[in-house]
């Protein structure tokens, strides 16, 4: 990495006063990422629909919106890369259907030209790549805007799809893929599905493992969260020179107490014992965190005691919001499923009309510069309330209002805590408020979902907040970024274990007589799992046994990995008890179970998002994409092959369109000529929601994936919430706007916070810019 410089502060310990070298904590770094708004938006949308719909949060509901999101995201990720590279591809939507129709027409015995799928499928890939190359080359050679060039391709593809379908089949629905030669082989690849009901993970029925699914996923979730928490601590706080033994012992005692409490909590059943052991667990966790911080991190300087102006306003506003949340929950009827419909009568219409008129007048005044734009915005929100009230029922409104007021209250209280030094007392008070909220929810709710799940989540949130408040009180912040970890050569061991395990499992699966794709996927998955376990063990060992300061990042990786594995375990496996609960016997005496399935499309989506992010953030090609999107001429003059980069991006988009087309074709076996038309705008919208700029040069592939998940959740959530679909686009538009605004706001805040004045805009934090060796040090800021 000798020839790279990064915007990120390097390991120089004496940062001095240079703002560019100032250390940002992990939370702040996360908040300046382009996809953070999308991430928060996704969480918000999920919580919203989880509150108002019973099946949305279940595994079936998750599989449902993930399927929609995957078809979108599979394309949105390469489209986002292309947008970061400064170009658009309007033909991307039509191309998905075009590759599918091309393949079926070639494969089938039409006009004596049945080539079979073994020829047709690879040929359709070549066809897609050729169109991508054509788009890219034409854009590059003519310097025409890609908007125009690909618009031409878009229309040509639509016309060709329709024309050739009608020419060869006299119909617009091209059918009969399943009759083509080689269907079984290719269907094993593109039509493969993970049927959750077929993967029962019980003690009895699953070979070798003595743990059942629920223990595995809960354990992974807890260990992962712990690793994540300690990783964040490690990145945030300064290490002390020698370990404090007393703190270490206290930490061990805390861990032991928490374990005892947790085991008792899960095995005993009774109100009093639950409360007692729950309190023991919480106390144990806080003691463990406090001891760990005393043992490992420097003590902070508490000399700057004081309160900044306005902290008590935040405190009271926060308490008031929580109070309003509780009052609303009490006065609104939880059983009432009638429409809210404020202002139904003529009085309401007058109020509504007056509101609109006032907003209009305020808007004109704002345009003339007489009032600030905030006033019409507030007015517009007030007018929107009666409009939205036709959408939701009383019980849904109760859930939404309670949730949002409680969240706002907690955020305000948190903000108040940030204005007080030391803040630990106020922070612990907030945790207490959340605990009270949790017990209120438990007492007030009728549904098991809220009484048990939301209750547990709120208690955990309170615990994490309390633990981090204690940690912040006991530890001093780092002043410089941690160095890279020292266990570099152990990575070779991880890689070796991973490769060997992959090969072994692959051979084992093949010996079992499984299909080749299944064997490859399970081999890679199990190999990756083995490598991950070795990585986690090495990280834990280095954290506990060495003085390596660079383990923080590795701990965060392990934590995120474990949490994701936990979610995957929950989604992919079923238990016998769960199956018994969800299956019903139909009128014909036949057993019917909801078929939760994950197609290859979901796997491809996840892989694409991962590869896209890796490409963009860690490779030279990713730097090239950023460079040509930011300023093509400047990029060219420092040696970036701009034409090649852009053409490659266009070909990546069309390659993804080929995969999408094949997935659709093998799912439906019959493809209508207009499949995919119009989706190109969805891809672009989703990429923008994910934090990519329309102007290029900035963005995130992962963000586009998250944007696709948001779209999937909204479009499916409306159905799950039983809202009338006439409102679909109103809700979709409003929520997308909120997601983008949140993105803007959060990033703006986070960027302003640490670095006061800035000549260098820090929004490229974390992006490696490749500069030829001779030019290092004369890096100019392109903006």
């Amino acid at each position, binding site marked *: 990495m000798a020839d790279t410089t990064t915007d990120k502060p390097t390991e120089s310990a004496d940062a001095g006063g240079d703002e560019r070298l100032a250390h940002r904590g992990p939370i702040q770094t996360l908040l300046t990422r382009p996809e953070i708004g999308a991430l928060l938006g996704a969480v918000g949308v999920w919580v919203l629909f989880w509150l108002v719909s019973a099946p949305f949060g279940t595994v079936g509901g998750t599989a*449902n919106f993930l399927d929609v999101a995957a078809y979108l995201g599979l394309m949105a990720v390469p489209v986002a890369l292309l947008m970061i590279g400064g170009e658009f591809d309007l033909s991307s939507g039509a191309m998905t259907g075009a590759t599918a129709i091309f393949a079926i027409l070639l494969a089938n015995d039409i006009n004596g030209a049945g080539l079979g799928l073994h020829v047709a499928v690879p040929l359709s890939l070549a066809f897609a790549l050729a169109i991508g190359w054509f788009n890219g080359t034409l854009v590059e050679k003519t310097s025409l805007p890609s908007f125009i060039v690909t618009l031409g391709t878009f229309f040509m593809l639509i016309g060709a799809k329709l024309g050739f379908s009608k020419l060869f089949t006299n*119909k617009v629905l091209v059918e009969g893929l399943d009759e083509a030669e080689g269907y079984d082989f290719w269907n094993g690849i593109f039509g493969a599905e993970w049927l959750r009901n077929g993967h029962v993970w019980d003690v009895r029925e699953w070979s070798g493992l003595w743990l059942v699914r629920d223990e595995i996923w809960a354990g992974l979730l807890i260990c992962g969260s712990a690793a994540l928490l300690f990783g964040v601590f490690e990145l945030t706080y300064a290490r002390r020179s020698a370990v404090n033994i007393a703190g270490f012992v206290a930490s061990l005692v805390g861990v032991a107490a928490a374990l005892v409490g947790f085991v008792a909590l899960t095995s005993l059943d009774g109100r009093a014992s639950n409360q007692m052991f729950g309190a023991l667990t919480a106390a144990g966790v806080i003691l463990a965190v406090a001891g760990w911080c005393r043992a490992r991190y420097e003590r902070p300087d508490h000399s700057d005691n004081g309160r900044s102006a306005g902290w008590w306003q935040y405190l009271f506003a926060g308490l008031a919001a929580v109070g309003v949340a509780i009052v609303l929950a009490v006065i609104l009827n939880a059983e009432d499923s009638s429409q809210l419909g404020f202002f139904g009568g003529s009085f309401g219409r007058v109020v509504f009309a007056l509101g609109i008129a006032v907003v209009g007048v305020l808007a004109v005044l704002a345009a003339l510069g007489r009032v600030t734009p905030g006033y019409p915005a507030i007015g517009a929100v007030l007018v929107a309330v009666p409009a939205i009230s036709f959408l939701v029922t009383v019980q849904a409104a109760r859930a939404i209002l309670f949730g949002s007021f409680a969240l706002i209250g907690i955020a305000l209280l948190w903000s108040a805590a940030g204005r007080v030094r030391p803040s630990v007392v106020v922070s612990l008070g907030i945790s207490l408020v959340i605990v009270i909220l949790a017990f209120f929810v438990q007492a007030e709710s009728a549904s098991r979902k809220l009484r048990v799940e939301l209750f547990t989540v709120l208690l955990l949130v309170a615990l994490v907040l309390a633990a981090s408040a204690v940690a912040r009180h006991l530890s001093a912040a780092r002043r410089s970024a941690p160095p890279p970890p020292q266990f570099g050569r152990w990575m070779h061991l991880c890689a070796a274990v991973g490769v060997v395990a992959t090969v072994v499992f692959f051979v084992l699966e093949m010996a079992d007589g499984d299909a080749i794709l299944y064997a490859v996927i399970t081999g890679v998955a199990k190999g990756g799992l083995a490598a991950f376990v070795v990585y986690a063990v090495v990280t834990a060992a280095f954290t506990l046994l060495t003085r390596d300061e660079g383990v923080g990042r590795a701990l965060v990786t392990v934590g995120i990995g474990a949490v994701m594995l936990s979610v995957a375990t929950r989604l992919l496996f079923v238990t016998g008890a769960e199956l018994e609960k969800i299956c019903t016997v139909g009128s014909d005496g036949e057993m019917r*179970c909801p078929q939760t399935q994950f197609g290859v499309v979901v796997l491809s989506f996840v892989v694409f998002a991962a590869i896209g992010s890796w490409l963009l953030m860690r490779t030279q090609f990713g730097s090239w994409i950023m460079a040509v999107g930011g300023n093509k001429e400047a990029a060219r003059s420092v040696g970036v092959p701009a034409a090649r980069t852009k053409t490659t991006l266009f070909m990546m988009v069309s390659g993804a369109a080929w995969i999408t087309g094949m997935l659709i074709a093998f799912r439906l076996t019959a493809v209508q000529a207009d499949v995919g038309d119009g989706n190109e705008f969805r891809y672009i919208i989703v990429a923008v929601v994910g934090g990519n700029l329309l102007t290029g040069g900035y963005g995130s592939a992962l963000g586009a994936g998250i944007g696709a998940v948001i779209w999937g959740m909204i479009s499916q959530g409306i159905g799950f919430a039983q809202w009338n679909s006439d409102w679909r686009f109103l809700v979709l538009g409003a929520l997308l706007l909120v997601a983008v605004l949140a993105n803007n706001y959060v990033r703006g805040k986070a960027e302003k916070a640490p670095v006061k004045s800035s000549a260098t805009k820090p929004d490229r934090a974390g992006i490696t810019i490749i500069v030829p060796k001779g030019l290092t040090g004369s890096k100019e800021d392109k903006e």
Partner: protein
Amino acid sequence: MSRLLKLLAAVLAITLIAASCGDDEGDAPAPAAPADEAPAAPADDEAPATTAAAADEVVETQGCDHTFHVITHGDSGVFWSVVEVAVNDAEAAIGCDVVYFGSNNDALAQSQEIEAAIASGSSGIAISLADPAGVSDAAASVVAAGIPLYTLNSGVNNYKDLGGVTHVGQTEVVAGNGAGERFNALGATHVLCARQEQSNVALEERCDGLAETFNGEVTSEFVGLDANPDEQQNGIAAILQADPSIDGVLGVGPNLPLRALAAGEQAGRELVIGGFDLSGDLIDAIEAGDVAFTVDQQQYLQGYLPVILMYLQATNQNTAGGGLPILTGPGFVDTGNASVVKALVSQGTR
């Protein structure tokens, strides 16, 4: 620069080949563009040949000097392609030129095409009124120009006010009524009326018609466009999971019943499924007993009859209908007649 020229030449050659292929359609059973000749050559040879063929046809029919126009809101979907086939068949039968145009739900484009047809001196214009407000000005000017106006497919409520001769189509409410009675007979209690378009009057009327005659509860929802089949399936599944009382789905298009079938499996539910219009896969599903029935509005008639009616009015001064619409449906396809209809569907005429 020379590379660019080569590229352009290649593009030109491809376009010419495509054009020559397109001309072959419907003209003759002759094989498509010969692949063994040099790419640019056949395009030059082909062009005069097709004009000659067209000229022959005109001579054969003893010089029909009428041109008729069929201008619909149709898209390139399964349904409208049958109408287009019917228009072409009718064109061959009467021997006059018939111009077909589908505006793909764009009322402005449809109006412009109608104005253009008036200007070109049409002898009869048949239009669909999916968006009556958007197209009625153009339709009124057809009548004002003294050209016979027919409506097809949609427009049964408006054709009389506009001065049209008659309407050829199915009234959507009546078709929905028929579906409702079928669901009653099949014992459903709560039917989801799934729509593939929003703000389409005809689709809404089908659902309204269903609600009129069906004895149970009807939920009418838009579940996703035909261009996004995965969204349709998951959308129906979401509604099924949210409301356990739904035991029937009426898809008001030919693709939705199949999506409903998959969604029912996904949600683990036993459903009575009905559909509208036909496609090969849908008939297979009806044959297999997975889908109970589909309402067929026999749209071939909607393309064929207006052309014949316009021809007879232009050449023989006949006016059909007697001021009432000519209904082409509802016909039903169920397990009883699925195999017969199947053969016709594969010809593209049902």
